[in-house]
């Protein structure tokens, strides 16, 4: 075991894994986290806690991780390189490990332009690829990247993110391979709506044998309405939502669109479950955590396995 996290155990035992995410609040009230986490509990093997996503200031990811850990949910710490130089990154890696966080997702982070503080100075001292390498070096070699010896190595199951739908497509699989070479143990993908394109991506990854070197968790986000689908397609760079997906939900009357979105998400998870090389799903029910049990249960993935 690399970190001994629940997620690692579940995946290593060959179970189809489920993760979800919990965005910390825009304030210091821990109850907001606890309320969301209560909806996640029991439905996942680990829960991502986002790190100032879309560059909007929120309660720190590490604090969020500890709050959900106290409730018995396994946290998955997201960490971006936008706001921290290598000194802060290493320090936060050590701190989170000391507090018992055992999973980590290494990200570059959305550009600060999208948040409330577009005038902020960004850092990007190292990139997400190098952050993976940094955590792996610290974990496996017991040294800082500078070469200095660690007084206790951090224990993390190391994750990375990929967007199979961003451009240019031809470097997407080579880039995943680089992340695996750098040290990624698992990968969570951007939300998938274009299954055909995703299958092409997966086939290319399998040709390289990448599915045997990394656990691939396919990202899904249930659509609440046709309006949400159109908005995401238009506004989010690298978000590929085919017209037929939008049509399927748009054809429903407004009051039935949410239910349709959930039905489509469940269908999609069932399809992903059957794909060779897919080790699990990452369900990003953004501000819709109350539907997690319905989606994950509906896909036949409950109860979650207990692996010792």
């Amino acid at each position, binding site marked *: 075991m690399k970190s001994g996290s629940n997620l690692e155990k579940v995946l290593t035992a060959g179970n189809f894994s489920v993760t979800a995410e919990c965005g910390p609040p825009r304030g210091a009230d821990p109850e907001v986290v606890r309320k969301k986490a209560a909806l996640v509990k029991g439905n996942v093997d680990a829960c991502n806690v986002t790190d100032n996503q879309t560059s909007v200031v929120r309660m720190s990811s590490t604090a969020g991780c500890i709050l959900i850990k106290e409730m018995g949910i396994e946290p998955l710490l997201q960490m971006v390189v936008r706001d921290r130089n290598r000194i802060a990154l290493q320090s936060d890696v050590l701190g989170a490990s000391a507090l018992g966080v055992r999973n980590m997702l290494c990200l570059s982070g959305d*550009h600060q332009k999208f948040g409330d503080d577009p005038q902020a100075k960004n850092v*990007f001292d190292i990139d997400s690829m190098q952050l993976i390498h940094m955590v792996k070096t610290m974990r496996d070699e017991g040294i800082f990247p500078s070469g200095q010896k660690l007084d206790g190595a951090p224990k993390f199951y190391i994750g990375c*993110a990929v967007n199979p739908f961003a451009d*240019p497509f031809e470097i997407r699989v080579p880039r995943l391979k680089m992340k695996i070479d750098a040290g990624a143990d698992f990968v969570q993908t951007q939300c998938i709506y274009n299954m055909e394109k995703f299958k092409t991506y997966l086939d290319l990854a399998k040709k390289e044998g990448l599915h045997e070197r990394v656990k691939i968790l396919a990202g899904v986000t249930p659509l609440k309405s046709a309006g949400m689908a159109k908005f995401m397609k238009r506004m989010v760079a*690298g978000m590929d939502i085919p017209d037929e997906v939008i049509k399927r939900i748009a054809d429903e009357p407004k009051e039935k669109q949410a239910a349709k979105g959930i039905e489509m998400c469940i269908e999609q998870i069932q399809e992903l479950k059957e794909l060779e090389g897919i080790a699990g799903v990452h369900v990003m029910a953004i501000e819709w955590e109350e539907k997690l049990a319905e989606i994950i249960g509906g896909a036949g993935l409950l109860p979650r396995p207990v692996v010792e």
Partner: protein
Amino acid sequence: MITGTPKPIEEILQMLEPYDNIVLAGCYGCVTVCRVGGEKEVEILASTIRLAREAAGKKITIKEVCLERQCDPEYVETMRPYVEDFQAVLSIACGAGIQFLAEKYLTTPLLPGINTGFLGVTERQGEWAERCQGCGDCVLHLTGGICPVTRCAKSLFHGPCGGSSQGICEVDKSVPCGWQLIVDRLKSLNQMDNYTKLKPYKGWNSSRDGGPRRIVREDMI
């Protein structure tokens, strides 16, 4: 070249409020080429200031000069015979030039008339774009002649990120994705091997992060 943009005239007039005789100093270097601080711009700005001050009933005397380069001591020295006859110097050279004047003429207030921009190129008449951040450790041979530090909004060394869409950076529709440019170029050069190599963490100590930089050429001293 070093590029820049004129400061708003309101800001300049506000800076000049306490003074009624000044030097307005341009530079024949970069700022002439990018048409923000050369001889012609000195003339235009001086006239604008005079008119505005006349209209406000507060006349101002302006000595117009344009130095060969405000970043070279021999040219900066040419102002010495008269600079003390004036209350202030408004410079429309780059930030380096303005500071060099300030450190040579210790008793005269120096005012910036432009906002210094970046190291860039003239893409077409009237349009300049950034190409170099002077990071002090060039990797252009590995990236198809396109700089990841400058051209990628996140200065990634293993781009492009998930925000690259149809060759455009998520930060702005007018900004090409630097990593799309790099990948396209590496492909055309048959150098994709460079892309798939894991690059070491960049040493930013050769950049501004190491503190103000200095180059000493013993062979020239």
